[in-house]
């Protein structure tokens, strides 16, 4: 299948061209965050305080890697279930977040926020964690080191393979994909 290459930070122009089902290779800087880090970020915004990372045009990857072996940049690093971040995602999109990488479907609110703020949701292949780790060329903790594997890491990725699941046009590959292949008899 044809693949599209994109580099962070993402602009509206790039995001507008992405449609569901496309296989995309991401390069550049991305951030990691799971529920605990999301809660901290959204709490800061509620208090009117600045975020510890600049998320304008950026992508957040929902991941909690396994520990790195000596000589490894990062341990195995497949996506975690995105639903746990649904409560926080619209707020971050409001701050300029342009992409999310995870696995599993999003709520109606998140999908609507993607349309409103022009952001895209990508699925990485759940369980393809050793393969994904090979696409990460650098990893460093950039905020909340006290969260251990759940700390916010800044990753540099090269051709990280993902699939567009929700685009800015409100389409949802989880819904459409199943419809296309279901056999009703």
């Amino acid at each position, binding site marked *: 299948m044809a693949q599209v290459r994109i580099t962070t930070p993402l602009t509206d122009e790039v995001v507008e061209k992405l449609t569901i089902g496309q296989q995309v290779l991401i390069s550049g800087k991305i951030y990691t965050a799971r529920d605990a880090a999301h809660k901290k970020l959204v709490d800061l915004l509620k208090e009117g305080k600045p975020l510890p990372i600049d998320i304008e045009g950026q992508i957040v990857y929902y991941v909690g890697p396994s520990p790195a072996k000596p000589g490894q940049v990062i341990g195995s690093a497949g996506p975690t279930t995105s639903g746990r971040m649904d409560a926080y995602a619209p707020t971050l999109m409001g701050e300029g977040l342009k992409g999310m990488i995870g696995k599993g479907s999003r709520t109606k609110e998140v999908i609507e926020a993607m349309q409103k703020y022009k952001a895209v949701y990508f699925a990485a292949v759940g369980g393809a964690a050793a393969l994904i780790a090979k696409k990460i060329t650098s990893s460093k903790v950039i905020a909340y080191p006290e969260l251990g594997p759940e700390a916010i890491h800044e990753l540099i990725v090269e051709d990280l393979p993902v699939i567009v699941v929700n685009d800015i046009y409100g389409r949802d*590959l989880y819904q459409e994909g*199943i419809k296309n292949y279901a056999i009703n008899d």
Partner: protein
Amino acid sequence: MREINVQSIIETVAKLCTEANYFLGSDVLDAIKEAKEKEASTLGKDILEQLVTNAAIAREESVPMCQDTGYAVIFVELGQDVHIVGGALNDAINEGVRKGYTEGYLRKSIVGHPLERKNTGDNTPAVIHVKVVPGDKLKITIAPKGGGSENMSAIKMLKPSEGVEGVKKFVVESVKAAGSNPCPPIVVGVGIGGTFEKCAYLAKEALLRPVGEQNPLPDIAKLEQDLLQAINKLGIGPQGLGGRTTALAVHIEIYPAHIASLPVAVNINCHAARHKEAIL
């Protein structure tokens, strides 16, 4: 009486923890490769290919195939003529898990109190199921279980009148509701019969069988095939993005039931259907 020292149990469990997480079994890998040939969705095919490549990388580099290296679920078949010396069986198993997960760079995913949720830091305790059997051997099987697929499991106490159709309906609905969350293609473990807790145990035990190996009872083997077909008609596909490979296999275990009961349990495993055993 044959004596087995806890030290050999510790070493064996530690080794099983890492091997189960680094090396995907040929049963699962073959099933994924076969599914790839048949998959109708191009994207689905590409995803299955990624899983094959991923397993190869994990094997070559001795790294976890998935970052969720799971809850250490351990099944022990303890020969009644075995005498364990040097310590307690459960302590030895937990020490083995601690060693395997720490020295093998596996992720520690266990919180000590389900509500306070502080990580125990070494992936202990394990969930340990012990069965006493005839003989003087000790068989240890580890099945590391990821959270994403475990969360999609379900159990229901059906009315006996609902029969096999009720069982089918509940299993298929449970898989449908799970959708993309358990990382399809999945392996579906089903327990039918027993009591509430026995039924859940049967569903888990069903996942230990090599992928695709049928239940020896012809009627249950047929039910496994029927359910697999019904599940693969759902269209969920690899990673839930649409396709014909939603499940690689359905495994059913049954047990006698109470005259008033027809319990059914569904335990879903992601495509990283890890299980590894050793006999001491």
